[in-house]
């Protein structure tokens, strides 16, 4: 029933979008498909911030449209087609679950350029882009291990998919570089967005002795719990310092704006090519929020780690990476794990005591 509703809502939104954009034929029309509401303060919000940056930069040459609350999976196809049909020449589909529908629509509209976030399927007119969020997670691990008194970190996971797993592993590798005996408690909430449940999970972790919380879900609920309990936490997707002025250590901020501006300029100049972009701290697609609520030596260490990742002297998944059983994982990238191993990560590193999900 909920799915049906979402479909109806998406269809209604799509209709509204067409009505709004009937004019201005000479400007380049750029479309965006969003997973959540633009006000989620998380994933979708940061794409919206980037869209606004794009408008600010190229507003006189382009016109943008966005559709929010578009359900992942086959339902999204309608919305993407809608944008393609209404003259949008560049369309950003901003969630992993839009992958197959985007591929399908890209085939139907060979002249339209598509950009799909966090996916791996490409075509002549379909490029992909994502951020190396695990780099930020590694820094958070270093900070967390320094700040934790109980030696136990709390991790709220959304779904056990490779991106989230690689985040947990990067955090642990960073934390182990400070404290080899660090422990992590993981709770999977099996949703990206449910503030109440995220808060409950945060409370459960705090009740069981975790004193630094990290999350891979989208709302600031966990940050707020940390603030109430007087423990520490990291923001997710956006700077959440407002919700935890005494708790936020830093946050991984998704910074899509420069990429959107670059790709749109390429389309305007006729130089756009289908590419696979996977940028991190160095290219500023992943940005760390200010380091707050920590002593100066921890702050210095965090900054040093960040600088090290940027200049390449610190590599989060540097071989040997040990699996849960203590045996080294095959090292396909020479000195570090290769992109495929990180993007498809299906193991926990040594030091995570939980059982690996679905294996």
């Amino acid at each position, binding site marked *: *029933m909920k799915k049906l509703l979402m479909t109806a809502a998406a269809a209604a939104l799509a209709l509204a979008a067409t009505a709004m954009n009937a004019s201005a034929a000479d400007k380049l029309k750029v479309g965006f498909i969003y997973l959540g509401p633009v006000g989620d303060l998380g994933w979708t919000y940061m794409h919206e911030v980037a869209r606004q940056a794009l408008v600010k930069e190229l507003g006189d040459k382009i016109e943008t449209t966005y559709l929010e609350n578009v359900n992942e999976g086959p339902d999204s196809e309608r919305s993407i087609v809608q944008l393609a049909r209404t003259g949008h020449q560049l369309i950003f589909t901003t969630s992993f679950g839009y992958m197959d529908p985007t591929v399908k629509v890209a085939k139907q509209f060979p002249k339209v350029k598509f950009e799909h976030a966090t996916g791996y399927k490409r075509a002549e007119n379909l490029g992909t882009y994502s951020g190396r969020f695990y780099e930020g997670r590694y820094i958070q691990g270093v900070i967390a291990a320094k700040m934790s008194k109980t030696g136990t970190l709390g991790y709220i996971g959304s779904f056990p998919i490779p991106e989230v797993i690689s985040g947990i592993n990067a955090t642990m590798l960073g934390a182990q570089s400070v404290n080899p005996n660090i422990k992590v408690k993981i709770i999977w909430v099996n949703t990206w967005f449910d503030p109440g449940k995220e808060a409950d999970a945060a409370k459960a972790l705090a009740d069981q002795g975790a004193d630094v919380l990290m999350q891979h879900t989208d709302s600031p609920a966990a940050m707020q719990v940390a603030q109430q309990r007087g423990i520490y936490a990291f923001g997710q997707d956006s700077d959440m310092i407002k919700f935890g002025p005494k708790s936020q250590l830093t946050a991984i901020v998704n910074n899509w704006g420069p990429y959107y501006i670059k790709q749109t300029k390429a389309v305007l100049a006729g130089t756009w090519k289908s590419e696979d972009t996977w940028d991190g701290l160095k290219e500023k697609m992943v940005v760390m929020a200010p380091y707050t609520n920590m002593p100066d030596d921890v702050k210095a260490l965090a900054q040093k780690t960040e600088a090290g990742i940027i200049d390449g002297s610190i590599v989060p998944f540097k071989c040997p990476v040990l699996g849960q059983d203590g045996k080294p994982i095959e090292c396909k990238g020479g000195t570090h794990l290769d992109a495929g191993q990180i993007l498809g990560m299906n193991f926990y590193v040594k030091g995570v005591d939980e059982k690996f999900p679905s294996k």
Partner: protein
Amino acid sequence: MLIVEAIILSVIAASTPLLLAAAGELVVERSGVLNLGVEGMMIMGAACGFAGAYLSGSTFVGALCGIAAGVALAFVFAVLTLGLAVNQVAAGLALTILGTGLSGLIGAGFVGQKIVPAPHLYIPWLSDIPVAGKILFAQDGFVYFSVLLVVGIWWFLYRTRGGLILRAVGDSHTSAHALGYPVLKIRLLAVLFGGGCAGLAGAFLPLAYTPFFIPGMTAGRGWIALALVVFSSWLPGRLVAGAYLFGAVTILQLHAQALGLGIPSQLMTALPYLATVIVLVIISRARGSAGSVAPASLGTVFVPDR
């Protein structure tokens, strides 16, 4: 704080919005109306409740705004289904879509704002009893009200003439009409009452549970409340059991995960639903045919003869 105490406090917080919304819907359905718009009324209650509390600085005003928003949306539903005799299922679904959109619009200016969470009301010396004191006598107003609400509903339905009439309307609107009872008026009041409860349940989320507003923050709780009404077989006592069981299993599975028991998290996430359905079905079976069944006129349109 003892861990048991912490768990029980979390369980109460997780169960309260479900109980509030489901209690209201139970009365609505007892009058023979099926309002599937609980989720929409809840999210409206959340948006308006937060707006009210933010602007006035008072949780109480916020709660009243939440109730008012739920009642207002329920009134739209009543006009459609009672006044114009529109299909109740379609109108209820439309109400959810409307509420979701409208709440996003109303709440847009309040996203990212903060308020002081609802105060916990301490009762002198009773609150100081170890463990039980904190659990029973130091909750916020919503929790006390939810308990009073269900007791009140039980008393109304089974101990008053008004409740008897309401149940009669839900079981056979034609008979009730023939006896001279104002079927549509009774149903209107029930629908508005249900809307108020759903609005209050929604307001609980940004006012007490997670003190901020984000569009879509009800995250399906309205649908769970609807299901609880059915599985409680329209009995207030079982509704309390169902809501608290659901809340308890939700919280316990999170703690079980943090302990690292190695049970697949997907199964754990499904557990509250499974446990609640199974237990309530077993209770219904155990009571045999004496158990209550759906109000006979539930979901059917009533157009009085002229």
